[in-house]
């Protein structure tokens, strides 16, 4: 790219990009029969959101027609802001995709590999562009003054960087966590109401956990720990008297299950927050290291020649830093504990659901599990008996001087401890 008329080049490039994107959108629309159902097609809705009626394309037009500024540097930074907004809008459009969420879009792909790849590409793109948004002010800082830890901390927006890390690690977003909390609250509240015990304080307690999570992410662990302790205390105070009041029967079981469920939820929330906190602090350490490397490269007169190059440095640095974290005992222990508490939540919510459906005349999951267990035990016993019978048949055949049971392709097979499965019953042959 020529440097003598940077604005002209930039505008040309933007116009070309817009043109190409419109062409790409049109090509996509014509590419596959699935795009024909435009009105109900979520993929098309996404494309519309991404290319036609969104701030991204509007901003593209605006920046392309922007008047030349008196001060090129200001204009350049202003354009940078515009570009930041462009990609923000783009990523936002990616995230919104009305009226169907990404899961719905994934179903539109002709095979699962393409669908998975789409999902992964979206993650990568999100990280790539989020990093770009994050990186821009840092690069300006490096350019304008000496880059050091203090500068870094002054510029870095931890929440923004956390969003980037969350997208990398596929962590549950705060919105999804809120949804999960609400569902769990509703489950417990519904039970509480049906038992006429109100489910008091449960809703408030669950909301507290969301607040505690945000505190942990902001590094306020002491404050968050107090909330978790308070939550556990509330859970106990809410349910223990009720359990004492209800001596026997389904109501008591439900109360006990709810008590256990909430206990594990509190534990899980605290662990999940800690895990995200680890990720956040290590991720920022990695970012600092990446920036340090870039500063060194700059000082030595060999700065990254493109954002792609910086992206690769950032990826490599993160890989190394996270690898160190993952191998620590503390991280391994936390992950193991979190797995246990999440499984406990699943176990108790399954039991609670099963209890709620126990009056419906269908087999419960536990009853089916019992049947599966018996079936596997029977299969094991039958196969063991079959083998013993086959062994005896072989011994008899050998005593009679005949051929052994197992014979295939004209060769005899001596099977010292158990014959091969009988071809007449089990062996099937077909072209695959």
């Amino acid at each position, binding site marked *: 790219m020529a440097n003598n008329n940077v604005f002209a080049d930039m505008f040309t490039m933007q116009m070309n990009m817009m043109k190409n994107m419109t062409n790409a959108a049109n090509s996509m629309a014509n590419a596959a029969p699935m795009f024909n159902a435009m009105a109900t097609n979520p993929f098309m809705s996404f494309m519309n959101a991404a290319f036609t009626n969104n701030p991204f394309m509007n901003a593209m037009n605006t920046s392309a027609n922007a008047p030349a500024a008196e001060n090129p540097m200001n204009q350049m930074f202003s354009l940078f802001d515009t570009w930041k907004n462009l990609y923000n809008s783009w990523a936002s459009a990616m995230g919104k995709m009305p009226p169907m969420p990404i899961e719905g879009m994934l179903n539109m792909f002709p095979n699962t590999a393409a669908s998975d790849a*789409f999902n992964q590409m979206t993650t990568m793109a999100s990280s790539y562009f989020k990093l770009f948004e994050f990186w821009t002010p840092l690069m300006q800082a490096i350019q304008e003054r000496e880059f050091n830890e203090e500068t870094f901390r002054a510029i870095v927006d931890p929440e923004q960087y956390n969003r980037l890390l969350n997208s990398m690690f596929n962590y549950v977003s705060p919105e999804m966590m809120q949804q999960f909390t609400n569902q769990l609250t509703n489950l417990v509240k519904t039970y509480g109401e049906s038992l006429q015990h109100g489910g008091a304080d449960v809703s408030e307690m669950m909301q507290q956990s969301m607040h505690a999570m945000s505190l942990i992410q902001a590094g306020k662990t002491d404050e968050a720990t107090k909330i978790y302790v308070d939550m556990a205390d509330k859970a106990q105070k809410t349910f223990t008297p009720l359990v004492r009041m209800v001596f026997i029967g389904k109501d008591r079981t439900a109360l006990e299950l709810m008590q256990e469920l909430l206990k594990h939820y509190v534990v899980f929330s605290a662990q999940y927050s800690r895990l995200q906190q680890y990720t956040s602090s290590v991720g920022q350490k990695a970012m600092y290291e990446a920036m340090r490397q870039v500063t060194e490269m700059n000082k030595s007169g060999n700065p990254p020649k493109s954002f792609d190059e910086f992206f690769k440095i950032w990826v490599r640095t993160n890989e190394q830093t996270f690898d160190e974290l993952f191998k620590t005992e503390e991280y391994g222990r936390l992950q193991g504990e979190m797995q246990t508490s999440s499984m406990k939540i699943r176990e108790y919510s*399954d039991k609670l659901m099963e209890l709620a459906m126990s009056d419906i005349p269908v087999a419960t999951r536990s009853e089916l599990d019992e049947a599966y267990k018996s079936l596997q035990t029977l299969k094991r016993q039958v196969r063991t008996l079959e083998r013993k019978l086959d062994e005896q048949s072989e011994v008899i055949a050998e005593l009679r001087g005949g051929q052994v049971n197992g014979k295939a392709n004209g060769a005899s097979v001596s099977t010292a401890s158990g014959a091969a499965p009988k071809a007449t019953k089990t062996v099937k042959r*077909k072209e695959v």
Partner: protein
Amino acid sequence: MATTQQEPKAEQAGSNAAFLPMLDMVGVMNDMTSMTMKIMQGYRNLATLKDEDIAVGSTPRELVFEQDGIKLYRYVQENTITCKTPVLVCYALVNKEYLLDLQPDRSYVKNLLQNGHDVYIIDWGYPTRANRYRTVDDYIDIYLNDCVDAVRRDAGVDKITLMGVCQGGTLSIIYTALYPHKIKNLVTLITPVDFSTNDGTLFAWAKYMDPNPVADVGNVSGDTMNNGFLMVKPMQRIDKFHAFANMMDDKAKMTNFLRMERWIFDSPSQAGECYRKFISELYLKNSLVKNELEIGGRTVNLQDITMPVLTVYAKQDHIVPPSSTKPLNDLVGSKDKEMIEFPGGHAGVFVSSQTQKMLAPAVSKWLHNHD
């Protein structure tokens, strides 16, 4: 991209050149434009991709035996069989066996066939909730044992070569120790044996896992397993899709990449009871190398493995590090044992273009020498 390396000069303030040493603004924007275009092109290509474009496991094979959703196949041999001992490939319960036959020009199985072997393979299927009570003991004493017998019957031989891959290698080692009279040669590839190692992240994490609450709720879903594997190298996922965006215009490269992705995400659930025992006995107690593992009421003693053993490992394997694989040869009772190191990672050793001409010929040579 144009980037000068000169220090900014005061007199250039206000001109474009003032900040070019550090930031080539147009270049950066060009990067962003280019990446956006590649991603959009990528979405378009993905949306129009057909199943047949990324077909896997294309080497012809015949169904020999089937039991409880577990299938035993024999590959169609179009060449002369020069090694008379049939090979039974026992793949892991995690992921699918077609990694070994990913595409015609990257097929370990095809290479074995071309080298004159009679090759059978087990497809463990996709366990459902109805299979949650399958144990490691069932996999050894019923399913693997029946597959071995079916191969012996089908091929008309007393003994076979058992070739275990990854977790399938661990199962093969256990099986061979319990049924040595049916096995002529044991070959293990990228197989975990010593679970006490701290070299692999998965091994480090497993030490703090309690398999009981997991198995108590049923099977372990394939997604859960996959997330664990992907979390070991979280940046690799982003890095490789960044590279993928740069290869979207090359259909061959794109479909090669997607075949591998298809394999990665094709993860069967793990039967809950099998998972419980595998984690608790092997990862947590390391009972296999201590000769303390019990299967079907019998103790597995690695000294009972006395036939020739070939151990293959990948030097850059971050899933099953060499430190977990290599101890096997010191633990077995065999006198005839050999170890081969190959470049590459865990799955890469089977699919990389570099190892296509190395792995199968080396294994084949060893098998011919022990026929």
